[in-house]
C-alpha cells in the first residue's frame, strides 16, 4: 500500500504539488488524470524518491520513504518497475540488454536464466525475437512496449506507468491497455498510471484520481467519475475547451 500525505513540492520557485493526499491499496490499479503540466510525472517521481518533497510524507507499506538514505532508496526501488513517459530506453544498449540490465547489474540470476527472462518478457509485449535491435530502430509504440518489458523484468510488486498510451495509435494504445490489465491479474501487483487518455483510464483503472491545481480533487471508480457532478471533473473527462478549468 502507498499512502501520500500532504505532499507539497515547489519546482523552480513555482508550487507544483500543493498538498496531495492519496492512498493506493495493495493489488489495485489507480490512474491519476490531469492536464499537461499539472505535475503528474513529478508526483510519480516522488514515489520512487527521484524527487524529495518540500513537506508531506510518502508511506510505502507503512514506511516513510521521504527520510530514506540513498542506499535504502535503492533497496526500495528494486521492488518497483517504471515505464517512463518517453520510454527512456538506453540507446547505447540493444533491446535485450535494456530489458536485462537490472537483472545483470544486480546479479539476481545466472546468465542463461537472464536470457530466458528477456525472451519471455519480450514475447509478453509481442516483440518476440527483437533482442538485438537498437532502440533507434524502433517505432514509438515498440519503444513503449520495450519500456514495459524492462519495467516488469525484475518482477516488481509496484508498477508505475507514465502515460503508457500517449502518442500511440488507438489500436496500439489498446494493446498496451490489455497488457496492463493482464499484468493486474498477477497477484499482489499494485499499479499507478498517469494519463490524459480517458479511454485508457476507464479501461485499466480500479479507481481514478484527478489532479487539478496541485491537489487531488476527485477519487473514485470509473463509473463514479463519469457521474461526478463536479463541473471541473466533467470538463476534463469530456475534453471541453470551455469550463471552470479554463475560466471561460
Amino acid at each position, binding site marked *: 500500500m502507498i499512502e501520500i500525505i500532504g505532499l507539497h513540492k515547489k519546482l523552480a520557485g513555482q508550487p507544483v504539488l500543493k498538498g496531495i493526499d492519496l492512498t493506493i491499496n495493495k493489488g489495485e490499479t489507480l490512474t491519476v488524470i490531469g492536464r499537461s503540466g499539472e505535475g503528474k510525472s513529478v508526483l510519480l517521481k516522488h514515489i520512487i524518491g527521484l524527487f524529495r518533497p518540500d513537506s508531506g510524507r510518502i508511506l510505502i507499506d507503512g514506511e516513510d520513504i521521504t527520510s530514506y538514505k540513498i542506499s535504502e532508496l535503492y533497496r526500495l526501488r528494486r521492488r518497483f518497475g517504471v515505464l517512463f513517459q518517453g520510454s527512456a530506453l*538506453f*540507446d547505447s544498449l540493444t533491446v535485450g540488454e535494456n530489458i536485462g*540490465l537490472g537483472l545483470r547489474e544486480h546479479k539476481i540470476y545466472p546468465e542463461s536464466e537472464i536470457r530466458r527472462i528477456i525472451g519471455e518478457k519480450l514475447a509478453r509485449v509481442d516483440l518476440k525475437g527483437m533482442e538485438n535491435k537498437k532502440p533507434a530502430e524502433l517505432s514509438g509504440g515498440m519503444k513503449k512496449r520495450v519500456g514495459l518489458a524492462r519495467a516488469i523484468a525484475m518482477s516488481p510488486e509496484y508498477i508505475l506507468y507514465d502515460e503508457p498510451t500517449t502518442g500511440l495509435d488507438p489500436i496500439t494504445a489498446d494493446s498496451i491497455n490489455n497488457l496492463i490489465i493482464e499484468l493486474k491479474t498477477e497477484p499482489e501487483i499494485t499499479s499507478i498510471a498517469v494519463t490524459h487518455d480517458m479511454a485508457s483510464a476507464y479501461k485499466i483503472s480500479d479507481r481514478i484520481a484527478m489532479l487539478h491545481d496541485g491537489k487531488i480533487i476527485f477519487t473514485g471508480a470509473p463509473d463514479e467519475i463519469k457521474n461526478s457532478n463536479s463541473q471541473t471533473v466533467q470538463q476534463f473527462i469530456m475534453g471541453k475547451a470551455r469550463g471552470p478549468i479554463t475560466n471561460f
Partner: protein
Amino acid sequence: MNLVPYLGHLVIRFTEHVGRLFILIGRLVISLPMVPQKARLITQQMLYMGVNSLPLVLFTSLFTGGVTAVQAAYQFRGIVPMTYLGGAVGKAVVIELGPVLTGLVIAGRVGASIAAELGTMKVTEQIDALETMAIDPVRYLVMPRFVSGIVMLPVLTIFSNFIAIVGGLAVSVWFLDLTTYSFLNSLKMFFELQDLLGGLLKSVAFGAIISIIGCYNGFNTSGGAEGVGKSTTRAVVVSSILILLADYGIASLVFG
C-alpha cells in the same frame, strides 16, 4: 546599482557548483573499489577514448613537433649551437607540449562527447531510469569514464611525445641541415626521467579533469537539445581552463 546582487548571485551559483562537483567526486571515490566488476564498461571507454582518438592526437603531435623544431632553431640562431636542438625539442615536448596538447585535444573530442552523451541521457530520462532500476549512475557511467581517462591520457601522451619528437627530427633533418645523429645525441644527452614522469603526471590529472567535468556537465543538463549543446560547450571550456591551471600547478610543484 544592480551589480552587488548580481555578483552575489554569481558567487552563490559558483559555490553551489563547486559543492556539487565535490559530492560527485566523493561518490566517484566510493565507487572505485568496483573497478573489477566494471571491466567491460571500462574497456569500451578505453577503446573509444584511446584508440579512436589516436589519429587526431598523432596528427596534432607531428605538426607540433615540427613547429617546435623550426621555432627553436630560429631562437637559437647566433646564440646556441644547433647541435642542442634535439634536447630542446625533446624537453619542450615531453614536459609541456605532449601532455597539454593531448589534454586539450581530448577535452575537445572526448570531454565534449561525454557531456553530450550523458546530457542526452539526462534530458531523455535515461539517468532517472538507471536510478529507478537501483543502478548508481556514478558507478555505471562516471567511474568507467574516469578510470579510462586517467589511464588513456598518459598512454596517448606517450604516443604524442614520440610522434612529436619524430616530427621535430624530420624537420631538423630535412629543412635545418642537422644530422639524425646529432639530433638524437642531444636528445639523449638532455633527457631526464623526471621530465617524462612530470609530463605523464600532468596527463593523469588532465584525464581526471576531462572525465569528471564532462560527466558533471552531462548530469547537470536541463532543457532538451539546447541544454545538451550548452553543457557540451561548458564542458570543453571549463576543462580546458582547468587543464591550463593544473598544468601550471603541477609544473611549479615538479619543476619549480
